[in-house]
């Protein structure tokens, strides 16, 4: 008699834990029942992100780079499982390489994006990039893993905490990624992954007063409405592309701070 395999429950990833949707709802995707996040789940995720963000931003850039690199290690270890949940080995490899590429940016951003400014007076003046805070990401429908990685990594490596909504039709790779994140060194709450309906969750994130920026990559036709809602607290709106790799992607989720101090005896 062959052994009956144990099937997985596909849940949300909020504050480092794996809760079901507080609404009790699921939807069927890729042949599985997947948690369908609610408005309340979004709020819980934003609260977890806000709580985790200062610690993540305060970590040294070297440390953040290593933590991000460790995500790549965790995916590499599960590469075979990931390959079955997305476009295959090639998509997994590109995702891993992209994470490694971004890991190396953590401790280089201030030198590339900031600098000292030669003001006409006896002042020392410098500009440094800082994270904008809590970032909402609507991941693209495709590719399910590389698309999410492409949109998640730039805000993450810049020191933001992220609430991301996975591909609606192909959410399993995101749940797998959540499990990899949970075994990596990313502090709980720094990345929160929700599965569910984009049209339902997008407006909640776009209008949330404690979200600083929103990436509407996976919003499709809803993007204009999300942009309108984002104005309520002057959110930074990013129209991310599903497959792009650049330090300027990170810069979209950064603020620039300029500090002055007099020079004298």
């Amino acid at each position, binding site marked *: 008699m062959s052994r009956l395999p144990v099937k997985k429950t596909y849940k949300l990833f909020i504050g480092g834990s794996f809760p079901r949707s507080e609404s009790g709802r699921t939807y069927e995707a890729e042949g599985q029942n997947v948690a369908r996040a609610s408005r309340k789940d979004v709020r819980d995720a934003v609260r977890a992100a806000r709580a985790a963000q200062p610690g993540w931003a305060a970590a040294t850039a070297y440390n953040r780079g290593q933590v991000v690199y460790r995500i790549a290690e965790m995916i590499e270890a599960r590469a075979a499982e990931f390959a079955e949940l997305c476009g295959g080995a090639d998509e997994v490899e590109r995702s891993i390489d992209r994470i490694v590429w971004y890991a190396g940016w953590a401790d280089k951003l201030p030198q590339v994006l900031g600098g000292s*400014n030669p003001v006409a007076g006896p002042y020392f003046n410098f500009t440094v990039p800082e994270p904008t805070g809590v970032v909402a990401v609507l991941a693209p429908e495709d590719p399910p893993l590389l698309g999410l990685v492409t949109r998640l990594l730039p805000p993450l490596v810049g020191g933001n905490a992220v609430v991301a909504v996975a591909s609606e039709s192909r959410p399993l790779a995101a749940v797998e990624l959540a499990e990899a994140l949970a075994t990596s060194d990313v502090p709980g709450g720094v990345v929160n992954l929700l599965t569910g309906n984009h049209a339902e969750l997008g407006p909640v994130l776009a209008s949330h007063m404690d979200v600083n920026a929103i990436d509407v990559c996976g919003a499709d036709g809803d993007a204009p409405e999300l942009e309108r809602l984002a104005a309520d607290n002057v959110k930074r709106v990013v129209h991310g592309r599903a497959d792009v790799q650049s330090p300027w992607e990170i810069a979209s989720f950064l603020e620039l701070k300029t500090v*002055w101090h*007099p020079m004298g005896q």
Partner: protein
Amino acid sequence: MAEIDKPTREVDVPGDWTYASAPESRDIVHIRDRYGYYVGGEWLEPAETYETIAPRDEEPLAAVGQATAEDVGRAVAAARTAYADGWSSLPGSERAKYLFRIARILQERAREFAVLESLNGGKPIKESRDVDLPLAAAHFFYYAGWADKLEYAFPNRRPRPVGVAGQIIPWNFPLLMLAWKVAPALACGNTVVLKPAETTPLTALLFCDVLRQAELPDGVVNIVTGDGRTGAALVESEDVDKIAFTGSTEVGKAIQRQLAGTGKRLTLELGGKAANIVFDDAALDQAVEGIVNGIYFNQGHVCCAGSRLFVQESIYEPLVAKLERRLTTLRVGDPLDKNTDVGAINSAAQLEKIRELVASGEEEGATIYQPPCVLPEKGYWFAPTVFTNVAQSYRIAQEEIFGPVLSVLTFRTPEEAVEKANNTPYGLSAGVWTEKGSRILWMAQRLRAGVVWANTFNRFDPGSPFGGYKESGFGREGGRHGLEPYLEFEE
């Protein structure tokens, strides 16, 4: 030794040490009776006009056009034509030379502009002469130099201009805000339609004469005047590729909503409620000067004004005593008087807003202090004001007053100072006063604001990026970062 005969002389000691008036002559400025719109290098006659006045005595200065959507459309079309007909493809080195010319002409005509700025806006001539004009010229000079070096600012990104920029500026630094907007836009190869603030159009209109002298190609800069309706028409205009707005957070949000889904680029420089934080080891007299400069500079009509003063509890009493004493020496009065420290409030509407918020402060229970000063009878005036016994929940501690009104609060620990300073939807600027270097950097890192002034306040420079966190807007003006909003990149 012989006695030396000392001559004895009676010296008249004046009983009154107030300054004699030292008015700057306004003869240097010629104001026309009526202004139209500057479109395609020509003056368009407006169908409807309104009167722009001098806030110091409500003297009518000129009739200025109230541009309609149709007028705005013509200005945008002129900008588009100029963009396509050569400005965008002109070598950067040639664009640079036009901007250098503008910088030089502004320096040459600085006094004329300074007098007009003080007349139309109400700010002290001391400030328009020593701050607004030098900085405006410096901005053009700074960005002139970037025009042919953009590839070095953005390596591997192949920068190119955005197109036609619609720019809407406020009334607190009329010509300086024009410079902040126009200089980087032109350096990057864009053409512009600029709308100065309703109450302060005159220096922007005089600037058109600088453009003529600089022989800037027609249509590269177009200026339309009017109230919020004109600004809204510019935002709605379909052929504008980018909007740059400096003004209130409320209007900024409305613009962000209006542009949703259009794909137009947007930068916003909005309101603020800056914390100015004084620790017990600060150089107190310097701090007092910084506090005064932070909130009474330009009558407090400054988006980055240090309007919330946080004082460490142990020095609260001596600091407030020094501050109140210092306030008695501020000279409030004629903006054209070279001794004036605090000029006229910009408009009747702004004066009303300040009065309303100050009344709310008194009603909510704060203690008001105003130094004895005689305000002129005509015009718009408000005495420098300090509120003590302010709770964080009071409107005067939450809302941007945009006037010479300071709210004083206290703290005990650095953590508490950070917590309270960041307890606002705004995030434009902040100040820190302490002699301890490590604490300055610790504070600077934690304050959620785009500009942090340590042991100084309200410093500006074309090379220094300026702009806000949170609801104070997005995008930076000044420095290399100030180029980015006016460029597209190939990636």
